[in-house]
């Protein structure tokens, strides 16, 4: 069995090629330690497994994608590397090739997008390029399916021959120093990888130097000698040499230069899409369309149909009638229908919306507009430690937090992605609207200002959290740079869109489904049974109600802990936020209430002051989202530890904000001052400190401490 690795730049058609080579035999997993998908599959018609490496520009040691790729190439030594190169953008693509050729593994270059080169009237001689690079080059088009068989044949041939390519030559001085370093390293690193380690050490690559152990001083001496001779830093010398070598190789094989119509068209589109005046309105228009299609129309029709008709009218009543007809035990019936099937519904009900959203996001990503969104919005978001692309998750989050969190996938920087996934649900989602309507209706005369304030608090919480979280250890570090390719626009391929959409949706079911199911089952169990395991008539006498009573003291400082019903409502909100109002209905003795709970307005008004009601609302908006959203967060954050920390942060912030609002509000309105007023002032001061201070968690002290020991 041949083991092959597919490597290449982002935006060069790598996913399309991977799909063409492996067909439907794909398996998706994770690279160790990072939340990057690891895909592998069997190459059609060959006895070979192909591992898809993340899209990278270089084998430098800085981004997780690059580290994962180089570790795989060096430590797991695949039999052959398939390096996909965009023929319309040879120089930058071949820069990665020049590093791959150093690893000492048989390599085949798949020269993709030859159809686009021909269309522009250009010519590339693959035989000449092959001799310039010292490895086999196959001209092809993944999109059109050209040259696939030839590529597969070349892969098996290269693996069988085991012929290692000749590395591209750097300048005289760099080559001389590299060979001196390789003399030092001989016997210390595997023979086949000596070229790789010598050149990387010459570049002062920290990970490569780490593996040289006590030879580092000797090596750096050679490096410094060359730097003095060249009057330039060694990394700059090597990068320039690599680029000169690949541009020579590219020039030797290019017959006619094409008119590069693709680039001209792209430039024309960009002139409009990123225009000073039109750029922002166009962005707003595209965002509106995404929101309109996935949240207002098609997406929610699908999800509503799933929940109301498919589950609500067919599956649940049908199942209940069938079980009752078969005289199954009522407890078991309730468990199957209300616990199990409703739990499944919570997972599957989101799928139509998720599918629609992912189709749109994949199209935006694939056609090249997503990169422009980052370009246009970067200035606004980077102040808050977020990416320009963070806008999309937050916007989608106003509809539903689950697809919102999943939309953070499109952010490249791992740090920005994690912060976005942790903060997206602060924005009120559509399921929180009934809670807003209840509080506004019962306590504020239906004022629209309550909803406006909710959104403003949500946005403020996201931006503030961005500032605070980026100072925290696992999320801190140098500001992520924004040196990003703006790929040429092109029409997305239907198959790729279809596949990526299914992949992303399936990833949600796989990673979040089990958790959502179990958590929903647990809350159902707690709300349906009493302590002696008897099925209860209403929630009032359930275990959950007792837990609510036991916990409600915690919320006394927030102004709504006096009546346990509010605590129970908050707990059932973890199932789905729209449950909050329904639970109140049941707790206040109504079998069913309208969506905004008009029936219970007077009772709520009697129990809460307006400021306490607002505090209750804020807590429910900001605290841990529903289980489905927590499951989605788990998918994006990778570990339960990180997810737990995120939920704790959300609950902590919710508590702090509600405390401040209630206590300071009471002080301002009623002039009440007590211990908790002082505490809330201290908490407010702490929040301000976290936002303003450069290093509130003393991270720099800890970091330098680590270096010292």
């Amino acid at each position, binding site marked *: 069995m041949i083991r092959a690795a597919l490597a290449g730049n982002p935006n060069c058609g790598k996913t399309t090629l991977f799909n063409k080579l492996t067909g439907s035999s794909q398996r998706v997993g994770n690279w160790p330690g990072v939340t990057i998908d690891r895909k592998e599959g069997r190459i059609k018609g060959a006895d070979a497994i192909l591992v898809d490496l993340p899209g990278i*520009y*270089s084998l*430098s040691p*800085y*981004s997780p994608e690059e580290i994962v790729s180089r570790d795989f190439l060096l430590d797991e030594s695949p039999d052959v590397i398939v390096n996909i190169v965009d023929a319309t*953008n040879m*120089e*930058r693509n071949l*820069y990665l090739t020049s590093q791959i050729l150093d690893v000492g593994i048989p390599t085949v270059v798949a020269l993709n997008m030859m159809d686009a080169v021909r269309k522009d009237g250009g010519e590339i001689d693959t035989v000449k390029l092959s001799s310039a690079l010292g490895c086999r080059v196959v001209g092809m088009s993944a999109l059109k399916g050209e040259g696939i068989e030839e590529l597969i044949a070349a892969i098996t041939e290269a693996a069988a021959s085991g012929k290692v390519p000749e590395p591209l030559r750097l300048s005289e001085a760099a080559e001389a120093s590299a060979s001196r370093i390789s003399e030092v390293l001989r016997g210390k690193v595997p023979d086949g990888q000596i070229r790789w380690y010598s050149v990387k050490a010459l570049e002062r690559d920290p990970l490569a130097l780490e593996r040289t152990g006590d030879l580092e001083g000797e090596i750096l001496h050679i490096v410094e000698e060359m730097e003095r001779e060249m009057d*330039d830093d060694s*990394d*700059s010398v090597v*990068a*320039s040499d690599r*680029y000169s070598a690949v*541009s020579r190789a590219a020039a030797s094989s290019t017959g006619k230069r094409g008119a*590069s119509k693709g*680039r001209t068209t*792209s*430039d024309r589109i*960009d*002139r409009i899409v*990123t*225009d*000073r*005046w039109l*750029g*922002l309105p166009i962005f707003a228009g595209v965002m509106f369309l995404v929101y309109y299609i996935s949240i207002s129309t098609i997406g929610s029709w699908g999800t509503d149909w799933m929940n109301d008709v498919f589950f609500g009218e067919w599956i649940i009543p049908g199942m209940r009638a069938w079980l009752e007809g078969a005289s199954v035990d009522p407890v078991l019936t309730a468990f199957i229908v209300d616990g199990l099937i409703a739990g499944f519904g919570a997972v599957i009900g989101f799928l139509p919306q998720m599918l629609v959203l992912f189709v749109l996001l994949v199209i935006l990503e694939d056609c090249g507009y997503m*990169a422009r969104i*980052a*370009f*246009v919005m*970067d*200035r*606004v978001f*980077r102040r808050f430690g977020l990416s320009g692309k963070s806008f999309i998750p937050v916007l989608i989050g106003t509809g539903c937090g689950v697809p919102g969190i999943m939309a953070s996938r499109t952010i490249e920087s791992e740090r920005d992605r994690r912060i976005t996934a942790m903060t997206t649900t602060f924005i009120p989602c559509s399921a929180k609207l009934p809670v807003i309507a209840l509080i506004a209706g019962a306590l504020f005369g239906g004022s629209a200002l309550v909803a406006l304030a909710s959104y403003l608090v949500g946005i403020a919480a996201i931006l503030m959290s961005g500032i605070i979280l980026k100072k925290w250890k696992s999320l801190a570090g*140098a500001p992520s*740079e*924004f*040196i*990003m*390719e*703006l*790929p*040429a626009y092109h029409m997305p391929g239907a198959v790729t869109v279809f596949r990526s959409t299914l992949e992303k949706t399936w990833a949600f079911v796989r990673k979040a489904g089990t958790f959502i199911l179990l958590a929903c089952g647990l809350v159902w169990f707690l709300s349906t049974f009493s302590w002696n395991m008897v099925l209860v008539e209403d929630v009032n006498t359930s275990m959950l109600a007792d837990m609510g009573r036991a916990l409600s003291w915690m919320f006394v400082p927030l102004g709504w802990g006096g009546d346990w019903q509010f605590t129970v409502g908050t707990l059932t909100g973890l199932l789905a936020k729209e449950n909050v109002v329904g639970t109140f209905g049941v707790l206040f003795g109504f079998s069913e209430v309208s969506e905004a709970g008009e029936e219970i307005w007077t009772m709520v008004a009697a129990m809460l002051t307006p400021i306490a009601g607002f505090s209750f609302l804020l807590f429910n908006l900001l605290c841990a989202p529903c289980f489905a959203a927590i499951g989605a967060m788990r998918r994006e954050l990778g570990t339960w530890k990180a997810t737990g920390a995120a939920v704790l942060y959300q609950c902590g912030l919710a508590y702090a904000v509600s405390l401040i609002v209630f206590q300071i509000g009471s002080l301002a309105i009623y002039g009440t001052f007590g211990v908790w007023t002082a505490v809330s002032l201290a908490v407010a001061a702490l929040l301000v400190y976290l936002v303003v201070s450069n290093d509130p968690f003393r991270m720099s002290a800890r970091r330098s401490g680590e270096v010292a020991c």
Partner: protein
Amino acid sequence: MGTLREVACGDTAKVMGISARGSMRKRIMDMGITKGCTVTVRRIAPLGDPMEVTVRGYELSLRKSEAESIEVE
């Protein structure tokens, strides 16, 4: 002699060196901005930052703070 940040829209400049350090320095060079190559400034984002440049035949965007560490003439 100045930095890429000061190059006007539509103008082309030759790179003389990169003053950034660490991962940013490596990233700038990996993306093809190396000593001796030419860079053309295409446009500035609607909000004034980042900027789009053409280098080695493709389009790259970078922040002005990053362009500041690229010495050109």
